[in-house]
């Protein structure tokens, strides 16, 4: 029987992969994708807790939809930034962007 704990585990694993991706990847697009993973891990938590703990209304689902909407906008802005910096630097590798170094 699949219960709350499985959903939370899945979300934790997904979030962990996202965190790992954000810190370990050097490609800006990959980092953006990792951030999406983390957001989706949160979405899973929202929906699962709405289903098992806070029954009787759909606030969790509603929030998940909000997150998806915001994430879509965020991805659009993020990709635009990446394209812009790619045109300037011919690179999407974060190691090349250290203008603010001491």
């Amino acid at each position, binding site marked *: 029987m699949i219960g709350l704990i499985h959903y939370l585990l899945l979300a934790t694993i997904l979030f962990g992969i996202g*965190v790992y991706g954000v*810190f370990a990847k050097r490609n800006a697009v990959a980092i953006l994708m990792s951030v999406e993973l983390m957001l989706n891990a949160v979405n899973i938590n929202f929906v699962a807790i709405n289903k098992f703990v806070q029954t009787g209304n759909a606030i969790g689902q509603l929030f998940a939809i909000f997150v998806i909407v915001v994430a879509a906008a965020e991805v659009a802005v993020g990709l635009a930034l990446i394209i812009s910096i790619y045109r300037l630097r011919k690179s999407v590798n*974060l190691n090349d962007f*250290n203008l*603010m*170094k001491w």
Partner: protein
Amino acid sequence: MINMQNILNISWLIPALPFLAFTLIGLFLHRWPKIAAAASILAIGGSFALSVPLAVKVFTGSPEQVFEISARWLSMPGLRVDMGIMIDPLTAVMLIVVTTVALLVQIYSLGYMDKDPGLSSYFAYQSIFAGSMLGLVVASNFGQLFVFWELVGICSYLLIGFWFGKESARDAAIKAFVTNRVGDFGFLLGILLLTIVFGTLNYSELAVRLAGYNNMAVLLPISILLFFGPMGKSAQFPLHVWLPDAMEGPTPVSALIHAATMVAAGVYLIARAFFIFSQSPQAMFLIAVVGGFTALFAASIALVQNDIKRILAYSTLSQLGYMVMAMGIGALTAGMFHLMTHAFFKSLLFLAAGSVIHALHEEQDIWKMGQLSHKMPITTWTFVIGALALAGIPPLSGFWSKDEILLGAYAGGYMGLYILGSLVAFMTAFYMFRLIFTAFFGSNTHGHHSHESSPVMTIPLMILALFSIVAGFVGSPFMDNIFGHFITSPGAAHHEASLPIMAVSSLIALSGILLAWMIYQKGIISPENLRQRFSGIYQLLYRKYYVDELYAWLIAVFVDGGARLLEWIDLKIVNGAVNSLASFTGWSGQTLRYTEDGQVQTYALYLLAGVVIILITAMWAVFAALV
């Protein structure tokens, strides 16, 4: 015929006219020195012309009547200062003295300062001085008095340092200003204490509130603090050091400010505030002792000085001490009387000395003069008249006033001060005639190249000589002592003239002159021998009891030492704290900047680390609560 009441109503013009002249000269007339001088003399002449009928009006009325008008000048909680005019007999006497001497000195200055490039500013300063001095005299309250008191102080500073190209003149001006600060600080404290305790600064209101007030714990500090003012302005020991140095100024300035008027302001203040001082016997005793000591101290220094102006300066100190002593023993009438006669004969002496200095091209050493009587008869004889008046030879003015002080001391039971005063009278006669026999008659022939000064200088001398002869009669028994009838105050002592005292003081003065004649004219006793025999005392007197050296030493040790200590604290401790804080901040910035490597992921890592730390702390708290 001028309506007499009108004179009182326009009496505010007396101080205002010279101020107007000052403003005009400062703004417009300074380009034309002759016109500036004319404006200044016209203004003081106008003040004089107003003062005379005013004095006539006051002295034909009753002694008690007081004319007073005032307007609020500044007011704040606990302090109200009015600007006003108060005319009573005391004021009238001062007005006559100040306007007369100032007018004559300004006319004389036309000749003396003839070639000076700074003539316009000289007359501008003279005007503002005259205005301030007259404002001080007519002041109706202590606040106004203090304002003008400071104004005459700054005029004194400007005029002492008038030839500011000379370093000695600059130093003397600063010395005068700083020494007066010490006195004025105490004076201001006294005034503030008055307004705190009695809630007013007005003389007549204070007199009413003080009547019957006998809290000595308040009156004594007030009296002593107020006396600090006269101590600075009238150069009483130990604040006397500035006056001899003030002789660096032009000689007419010395005559007007540092002999006749400004330095007498201190004595005038004691007379004005007599109703305060007379209530505390200890303060009166202190005043008498300080005055008497200054008189003797300065007279002894004058015995051995060689500079003609310095001899006169120490003589002024000594005579101011006399006046202060008179105030201290309660002889207010005698003190003011001496102030008046002294103003005339001492300004005469200074102006005559200026005439000599002018003729000898700035030579001031009496040993480099001699036989001036042939070449400069008017100067010589007016000087002799001034000296006779100062020495107290009857019937010249100085005799009557000095005699009244000695009488006051004798009859008041101050035997010590009477003997001291007589001794000073003897010394005065001696040093004045030492000066005369050496500079005007002596065997030296340095004076042969001199010439008599122009009439613009000699006529003021003759007028002042006339005053020096006759001014004493107003206080003499021949004229029913009309002066004492008007100038008096509750609590002021008054004594009938006594013939033995007069005879004794005349003999003392004559013997002083005789001794000077024997030593310096006839050479019966050689001055060289005296100097050799008493070389220790001679040095002590010649170096002015080493007071200047003592002050220099005290300043070097305590003021400079304190400054060095504070400098060290400032540099090492205050600066050190600020600097180490700055360098710590700089060092931490230098170190911490290596955390900023420009990589977004590094920053994200810091963020994650923060989140983890917060999380661990929170969980620790939760677990601790559970266990």
